[in-house]
């Protein structure tokens, strides 16, 4: 663990005489050569955080040093789901310790958010977790709306639920597909992406883009659903369950799949809670925690669905939970589509949403109004808020501070992938090196979400 710099003289200014390299500088600057954390520091850190978990591995000094090896994996590796880098300490074939190194996709999005108006902010957050862009937009919009105190019309809320639940399906499809590919079930990759195209086609029709939609905005959604959306949703509801039955045939009782995933990468419920792990990983460990039930948002409490849980907390259970969640999400989509309310798709509050298009043609004031909203943006009352929703990977939170101007003073995202990634060392300790990719894939980390 990196010690705090003791005095300002520890900071070296370029051009001056280089100081003696103290311990904290080594730790802070050179990750590659950095030693794995010593056990007593881990112990201390665990106690400080109040996160004591059962770690049954003790350093065995009798093992020959020749047997110990630190292997670097990534950041350019086909199975690390982006640019994750792992330092893996091996004893022969057994993984003893793992250290994830992140930041290879750090985009400075939280800083960028401070330079964008509230209306533009959606373009930024949607690119964080790029497999669940609509969830990011929803979370951000809910936070802005909470500060604004505006009321969202029922149709907008229903559209938001429809789109985010479809997005959950498409995200879990990618998770299952890549999980399959990493373990060697290549056909799963082909199937998963095939069905995802169906949902993406609907997204493209509705939002104009396949990904990074900026569709859900503070005040409602950007546009109404397109004509004929009922048929598209009906087709999705018909084809995806049928395709999922194929996946079940392919994987559910496949002895190779079970052999590679059963009992692999186990994490217990206590460990999940200690490390802030949420989403399918937590539910696969047997905790029925779903923010859609615990803290309902956008009127999701009106729909009927179950929280899918596992019992063992291994890779197989996580796969089962994702498949189950896809079914539940489609259940929600079916109910939303059947009971889609009529009305406006964005709030009537003219402080937030621009005047209708036809008013702009006939009224100079409406034109000015429209121009002001899109250039200056609307002002949000000073204050701070935290809103969390259930993204496909877990609790996605948005902490927003406003100083009363047209852009946030600070925006922070509680990224589910980031918290879940902390659990990787627990999951992989004492497992075989071949199970590494299975563990990573089952966590389904999106590095854009981790690094932002």
């Amino acid at each position, binding site marked *: 663990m990196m010690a705090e710099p003791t005095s300002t003289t520890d900071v070296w200014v370029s051009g001056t005489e280089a100081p003696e390299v103290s311990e904290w500088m080594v730790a802070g600057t050179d990750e590659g050569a950095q030693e794995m954390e010593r056990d007593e520091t881990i112990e201390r850190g665990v106690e400080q955080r109040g996160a004591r978990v059962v770690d049954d591995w003790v350093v065995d000094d009798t093992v020959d040093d020749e047997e110990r090896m630190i292997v670097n994996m990534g*950041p*350019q*590796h*086909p199975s690390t789901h*982006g*640019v994750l880098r792992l330092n893996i300490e091996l004893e022969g074939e057994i993984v003893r310790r793992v250290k994830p190194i992140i*930041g*290879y*996709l*750090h*985009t*400075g*999005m939280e*800083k*960028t958010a401070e330079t964008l108006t509230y209306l533009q902010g959606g*373009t*930024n957050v949607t*690119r964080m977790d*790029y*497999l669940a862009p609509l969830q990011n937009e929803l979370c951000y919009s809910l936070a802005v709306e909470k500060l604004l105190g505006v009321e969202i019309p029922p149709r907008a809320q229903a559209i938001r639920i429809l789109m985010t639940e479809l997005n959950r399906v498409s995200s879990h499809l*990618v998770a299952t*597909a890549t999980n399959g590919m990493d373990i060697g079930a290549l056909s799963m*990759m*082909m*199937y998963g*992406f*095939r069905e*995802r*195209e169906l949902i*993406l086609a609907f997204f493209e029709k509705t939002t104009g883009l*396949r*990904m*990074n939609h900026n569709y859900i905005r503070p005040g409602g959604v950007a546009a109404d659903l397109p004509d004929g959306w009922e048929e598209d949703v009906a087709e999705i509801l018909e084809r995806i369950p049928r395709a999922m039955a194929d996946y079940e045939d392919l994987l559910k009782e496949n002895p190779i799949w079970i052999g590679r995933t059963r009992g692999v990468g186990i994490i217990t419920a206590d460990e999940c809670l200690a490390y802030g792990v949420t989403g399918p990983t937590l539910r696969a460990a047997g905790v029925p925690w779903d923010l859609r039930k615990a803290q309902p948002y956008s009127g999701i409490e009106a729909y009927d669905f179950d929280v899918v849980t596992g019992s063992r907390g291994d890779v197989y259970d996580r796969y089962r939970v994702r498949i189950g969640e896809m079914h539940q999400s489609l259940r929600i989509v079916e109910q939303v589509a059947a009971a889609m309310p009529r009305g406006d798709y964005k709030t009537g509050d003219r402080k937030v949403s621009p005047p209708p298009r036809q008013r702009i043609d006939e009224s100079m004031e409406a034109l000015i109004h429209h121009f002001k909203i899109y250039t200056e943006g609307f002002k949000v009352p000073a204050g701070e808020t935290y809103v969390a929703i259930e993204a496909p990977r877990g609790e996605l939170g948005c902490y927003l501070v406003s100083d009363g101007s047209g852009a946030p003073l600070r925006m922070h995202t509680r990224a589910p992938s980031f918290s879940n990634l902390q659990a990787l060392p627990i999951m992989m300790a004492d497992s075989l090196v071949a199970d590494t990719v299975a563990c990573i894939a089952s966590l389904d980390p999106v*590095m*854009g979400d981790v*690094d932002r």
Partner: protein
Amino acid sequence: MAHLTAPPQLLTTTLGKAMRWSQQQSMWPATFGLACCAIEMMATGTAHNDLARFGMEVFRASPRQADLMVVAGRVSQKMAPVLRQVYDQMADPKWVISMGACASTGGMFNNYALVQGVDQIVPVDVYVPGCPPGPQSLMHGILTLQDKVMSGELAR
């Protein structure tokens, strides 16, 4: 339909043309997925869009076996040396496609964290616009590269 009386099956060409043709027809990309564009790159390679039609579906995990680097996504300052190292490890002849707005120019992120265009680090042959570019755009970029290789403009 081989006939005993058929004329000798000969084809005359120039060495350069034959080389360009073979370079063009089996260009193996290195997997270099970074961000959102990587997902679209995966979508391009899988069933629905099927990059295999253009002889490019063999995404190689090792840069040593790859001819083409598709820089798919935003390149952070921390990733830049890694990217350059992967490029250096690729064997000649090699090409680079910059996929998406972030890789080409930094995109909407004009800040401290991102390299403002991957062409600051590696020579780029084809830029594919979009955020992210759809599979069709990427395929168009790849076909453009193939055309340019065949015409000799980008032949190595």
